[in-house]
């Protein structure tokens, strides 16, 4: 290490500087200054540019030897001299400068970064404006360098993200200056490249959009002022923008800290078109299928009723088969339409007070002929007193009928299907219990999903649409109820439906069970 003792005992006489007794006072002073300083620094002195450095400077290069002390820099630097020389000569010409962020990597360590500040040292003893040496003071700026690098990396990552998402993105500050925007945002709103620039006033963009009529009819300035007002007064907002060119945009705004806000735009034209086409298709299916079905069911109904003349027994049986199957087709069309309506939330529920016990009886009666054909017993266990609920009668009958017909469908002959109605607290519970094969565990999770149907149906005529339970679930949930499979049942299948009782009923009905 170049400590004071090492410095003093150095063999200076072997260097161009000669023995220290022959040095100028200024060189002594400069060397004292270097030896005392904790700041890494070096001095190049005299015509030979002799290299003098302190221990702090040694540390940054990770060297302990003081062999280089006093030797000409050209020798010490070796191949690097060609790079170093112009800088050194610059200082000797009387110029000072700072070299920044110079990386130094010491054996296997991550690089550290240094600023090197070069200063000419003039001859103060003679008073001549002659440069005797070059002083270089270095500062470790690794922390600053890393921070800048991280910042530029995160800026790059942000730009990369913003430029590569499908959504349009724009960030605006409290003074409405556009801080960040991406290409999809420009395209969604149809701004030319000249029209949108970082730092511009976002108000100008809004006015341009309003002027094109993309924000509706009216005075563009007034539309934009109303928009800015809503931006200032609400934390977030979703706008559907119907552009004049036919595109439909979904624009979401989220206010952020410091009065900034983020805009995210999506082009939803294709989704809208698809939704419209689907609605049209459903409507077409509804009309195009129901019209011929009406003719078929109508014709069969008239013939089947004997209104077109007496039928032979065989013809009557055939007509009944045709009737059953046309009914099945009608149910299928209805199911498909119901699912579509439930899915899009367009189904209408007309709630009215009803006696659940009566609905259970009605749905059992409806399924009775069907059950008897399969040699099954269909039995109801209902309380004596009415069970008042507030339901859409038609839809609730649809649920019960569906559950009972499922139970019948999956029951072996000569068994019983039981429908039990109980009141528990403020809720009514319907349980549909059969003695069939039960539902295999692997199928249970999908039971209430659309188009799920287990193939263990006894192959009678009554295969369903695979939509029934999905529809039931939707309807029950619309009534704030729940439907689930009893997994504790070991034999057969039990499905429970819970419905809230109609509020404010007397205790009598509840005590009926």
């Amino acid at each position, binding site marked *: 290490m170049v400590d004071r003792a090492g410095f003093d005992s150095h063999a200076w006489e072997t260097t161009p500087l000669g023995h220290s007794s022959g040095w100028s006072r200024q060189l002594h002073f400069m060397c004292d200054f270097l030896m005392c300083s904790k700041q890494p620094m070096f001095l190049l002195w005299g015509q030979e540019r002799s290299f003098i450095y302190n221990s702090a400077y040694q540390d940054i290069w990770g060297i302990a030897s003081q062999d280089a002390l006093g030797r000409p820099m050209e020798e010490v630097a070796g191949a690097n001299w060609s790079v170093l020389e112009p800088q050194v000569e610059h200082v000797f010409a009387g110029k000072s400068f700072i070299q920044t962020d110079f990386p130094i990597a010491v054996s296997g360590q991550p690089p550290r970064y240094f600023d090197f500040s070069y200063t000419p040292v003039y001859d103060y003893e003679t008073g001549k404006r002659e440069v005797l040496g070059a002083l270089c003071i270095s500062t470790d700026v690794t922390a600053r360098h890393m921070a800048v690098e991280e910042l530029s990396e995160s800026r790059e990552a942000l730009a990369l993200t913003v430029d590569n998402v499908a959504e349009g993105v724009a960030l605006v500050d409290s003074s409405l200056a556009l801080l960040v925007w991406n290409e999809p945002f420009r395209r969604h709103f149809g701004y030319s490249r000249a029209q949108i620039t970082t730092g511009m006033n976002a108000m100008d963009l809004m006015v341009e959009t309003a002027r094109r009529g993309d924000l509706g009819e009216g005075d563009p300035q007034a539309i934009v002022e109303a928009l800015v007002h809503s931006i200032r007064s609400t934390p977030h907002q979703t706008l559907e923008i119907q552009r004049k060119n036919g595109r439909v945009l979904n624009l979401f705004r989220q206010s952020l800290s410091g009065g900034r806000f983020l805009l995210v735009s999506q082009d939803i034209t294709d989704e809208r078109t698809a939704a419209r086409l689907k609605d049209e298709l459903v409507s077409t299916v509804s*009309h195009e299928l*129901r019209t011929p079905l009406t003719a078929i*069911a*109508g014709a069969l*109904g*008239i013939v089947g009723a004997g*209104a077109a003349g007496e039928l032979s027994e065989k013809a009557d049986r055939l007509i009944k088969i045709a009737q059953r199957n046309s009914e099945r087709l009608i149910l299928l069309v209805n199911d498909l339409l119901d699912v579509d309506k439930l899915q899009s939330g367009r189904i209408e529920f007309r709630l009215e007070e009803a006696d659940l016990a009566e609905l259970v009886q009605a749905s059992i009666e409806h399924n009775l002929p069907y059950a008897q054909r399969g040699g099954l017993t269909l039995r109801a266990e209902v309380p004596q007193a009415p069970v008042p609920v507030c339901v859409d009668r038609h839809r609730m009958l649809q649920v019960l009928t569906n559950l009972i017909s499922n139970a019948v469908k999956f029951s072996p002959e000569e068994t019983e299907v039981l429908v039990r109605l109980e009141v528990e607290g403020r809720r009514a519970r319907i349980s549909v219990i059969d003695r069939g094969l039960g539902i295999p565990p692997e199928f249970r999770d999908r039971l209430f999903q659309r188009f799920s149907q287990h193939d263990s149906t006894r192959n009678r005529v009554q295969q369903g649409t695979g939509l029934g339970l999905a529809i039931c679930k939707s309807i029950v949930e619309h009534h704030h109820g729940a439907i689930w499979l009893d997994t504790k049942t070991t034999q057969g299948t039990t499905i429970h439906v819970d419905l809230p009782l109609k509020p404010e009923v007397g205790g009598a009905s509840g005590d009926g069970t």
Partner: protein
Amino acid sequence: MSLRVLYVDDEEDLREVAQMSLELDPEIEVRACASGAAAIEEIDAWHPDLILMDVMMPDMDGPETLRRMRARGVAVPIVFVTARAAHTDVQQLTALGADGVVAKPFNPLQLATQVRRYLDSG
């Protein structure tokens, strides 16, 4: 007393089935037309007591035919037969001046009864 029902539908098979369904009631007399325009002419010639009409028809659809009939002073009940008989559809048709809606597919054995309901109340 015989009741005259005019059935309007562009579907020939449906016209025939509906006519036969309605005629299961011996007191109902039925004539069928394939278009709104033909129906308007038939009204002037035949003076039906009730008009039963499809909604979706080419050229002139049900609501448009209804509008023209009402504009011409036709005051007898006009009932639509439609595959789209959801509550809102019914409300829309009623708002246009329809007296009622029969859902497709209809039960052929009950069609006459359904139609009579509008005649009795009218």
